[in-house]
């Protein structure tokens, strides 16, 4: 059984702007799945999904067409300008 304690959604989402540059930096090397981004920035995958989908909604990243064999989509930055 997992012993991971999940954080409240409002708290995770509130941190989304802070995570933008870290996620974009992780994507510099190429498209990544949510677990790969999570590993790159050292955050839980469920939290990364919130941030990735928030960034996708506002056009900062997009999915690469087909999922991996493991069933994960990869995401890439829509442009390579990484803000401060």
């Amino acid at each position, binding site marked *: 059984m997992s012993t991971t304690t999940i954080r409240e*959604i409002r708290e995770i*989402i*509130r*941190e989304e702007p*802070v995570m933008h540059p870290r996620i974009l930096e992780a994507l510099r090397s190429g498209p990544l799945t949510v677990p790969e981004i999570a590993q790159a920035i050292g955050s839980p995958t469920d939290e990364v999904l919130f941030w990735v989908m928030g960034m996708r909604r506002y056009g900062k990243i997009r999915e690469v067409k087909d999922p991996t064999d493991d069933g994960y989509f990869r995401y890439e930055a829509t442009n390579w300008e990484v803000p401060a």
Partner: protein
Amino acid sequence: MDYDVLVVGSGIGGMESALKLGDMGYKVLVVEKEASVGGRMILLSKVFPTLDCASCISTPKMAATIHHPNLTVMTYSEVKGITRDADGHFHANVKRKARYVDEVACTGCQQCETACTVAVPDQFNADLVARRAAYIAFPQAVPKKAVIERQGSSPCTFACPAGIEAHGYVSLIRSGEYEKAHRLVLDATPLVGTLGRACYAPCESECTRGSLEGTLPIRRLKRFISDHHVESGAGLGIEVAAPNGRRVAVVGSGPAGLTAAWQLARKGYAVKIYEAAPEPGGFLRLAIPSYRLPVEVVERDIQNVRDLGVEIVTNTPVRDLAALKSEGYDAVLVATGTPRSTGLGVPGEDRLGVLAATDFLRRVKLGETVDLTGKRVVVVGGGNVAMDASRVARRLGATSVTVAYRRSRAEMPAHHVEADDAEKEGVQFAFQVAPVEVTGDAAGAVNGLRCVRMALGEPDASGRRSPTPIKGSEHVLPCDVIIAAIGMTPDTAAFASQIGVERRGTLRADPKTLQTDVPYIFAAGDVVNGATDITRAVGEGRRAAHMIDRWLTGGILDGFDLRLPVVDKEQVLARQKTYTLRPATPEAVTLVAEPRDFREVEAPLSETEARAAAGRCMDCAVCSGCHECVNVCPVENCIDLYARDTELDVEVGAVVVSTGYKLFAADLKPQYGFGKYRNVITGMQMDRLLAPTRPFNTVLRPSDGKVPERIAYILCTGSRDETVGNPLCSKFCCMYSIKQNQLIMGALPLAEVTVHYMDIRAAGKRYDEFYEQSKSMGATYVKGRVAKITEKENGNLILRYEDIENGGQLVDAEYDLVVLAVGVQPNRDAQRLFPQEELAEDQYFYVAEPDEDLNPGVTSIPGVFVAGAASGAKDIVDSILHAGAAAAQVAAHLERTQAKTKVPA
């Protein structure tokens, strides 16, 4: 009569009733609490059993509702109360919540939303993704107009006497927009670097995060953006109006004068500052020690003012204010502060070695040699100036520095941080002593301060306990230098014959308009209020500039303080059940017991620290006031962040309650783990994942973004369940689950779908066929209640259930994703609509229809009708039918009572 009918709520039931009544010729007012009409139906993927696109069939009805000539729709509004008069007419009070966006002017371009710096859960996507504080409800919103969720003023912003949008610049820093954050502070004052160091940060005292692991370092964040701005070499980047041909003289160049000059220059005035001292800046430049506020920081801030074309002349005291008028100035602002120290008022105070604190600090700041090496210094007073003087004395080589204060430490007016820091730098304190004589040697030099001990009595008008001398307690503090820091006063004698001067030397000015007895002369800051602090002086300078502009342009002298009421911190904290504590930003002040230089004692925040600190902000007011929406909006004056809610009263002939239902809160079934296991979601969340405007790129499981392969449904979650107090069937959970099963199998052809059910209720035209179709597509239906769900390390879920149709054995089954088909519950908000009489509920707390068999839609209150799911669980088809019946009942009522605006054609 304003309208024939008031319809409360604009879900499918409300829209249907309103449209039918409008078609009959009745004038209808529809009030909707959300920013768009449409209710829940517009958020669905498809409808059963036809699998029509919910958006495709909703949006025409939504558009018809908005555009119908007989319908008036007020979105983002709430009915606060409805009363019935003796004639049977209804009087409703409607609150139109401030949208902060001009509903007519908004083009729906979403630029405000894209620029917004605050992310919050999107209730229209069942909290699966973030939206922004500035938002359009959903892509098909009608009207497609933005709204800004702004719950008031954040405590930090509200607390700032300078009127700086503290929450705004914190949220910009969080987003990495450092220059924009700098410009936001510049919008209030040019003194960004100064306030980033020397402000006492009342914002931090009010920070809600202080209730958790500690307040945000808001002041140091301001310093960070100031330092970043300097390092970047960027221009000021602020808007300045074209010259308007008018001139204003500002007398005094402290924080009030500099800020007023800055604001007036931005409005196009030609401004000249007259400063009596050899350097501009007032106390910032001539008193606050460099270890707290380096000279170059003040000079940089003053350069901001000069960069706008403001002329500053020094060594130019002004004594004749009328002469400035004669020189062609249209208005004069006096902001000369409190440059004089109050004397000790005891014998011997003219001895060699007695210094006034302001003179002492000024000499040091101007670079004069003041050597206290080997001296014993006593500083008299307990304010911030006393702390500054004592710490400066330590840096000038004094062997001992003692602060003598007549009350206790708790009553010292100095900021506690200043007193603590002074102590860490070796300053000693003698409390409850008052000077009675300066003693000296034969040459006239100081050799001691005779003091008397004080007893503290009852609190005085200031709330501090009054000191009274203790007889026989006189003693001498041996010393070589005495610095008097017991108060500061204005130097206004020259103005006494021109404008009103109060007994204590302050200028008389209207506290709101800051206008003096002479209309063209305004006065602001400490010269009016006595010694305060920088932020108050800055706020006064801003106010003065605003009022001077109003006066010179013929306006009424009002409208300065537009702050919304401060949000309740308890309500902010109540938004979350749990909080993750983050490391508080560590203090970065380095103090030594024997300081010998004036290097800045506080280290700056690194970018990482600043970003992390800003990331702890709780967005108390939701909207941060960063003004990015205003800056990017293509329509001038479309956004007004200081708008207020409005209310209106309307008289109507009948009321239709169509307030819908509430979804069962799935976390009330803790054995299913909703809110604990990410991959347990609700049926509404799955509908959003399947909708064309879905929050993810496809159906993904929330724990890690994986495309799920094995999906389970648990029907009757929170319905037909006495353990949660809801014995009723919710009627449509089976059917929406079957619908979703089919959609999932279409979207994810490889996915296996299993439905755990008690019994399938598919009573309706083509409903059972729809169920059979689902089975034929491959969905598996397992009869039996699920006992519990547990989670594996990989996020998969183990369902334990009794397999009734296979011998009743206990089975553990593993899934990627579990969907709880939550039931519905009554929305009891309808009860609050009628404060004076009871709108009867049935035994399950839905709006009662006392004669529902023969008179559906009729409630317990004559003239009040109910439409749709407010009276009980109904699917879309039944809601529309019920709403049509309610409309007919309304029409019959209006015709019978003639309570209408006009007879229908």
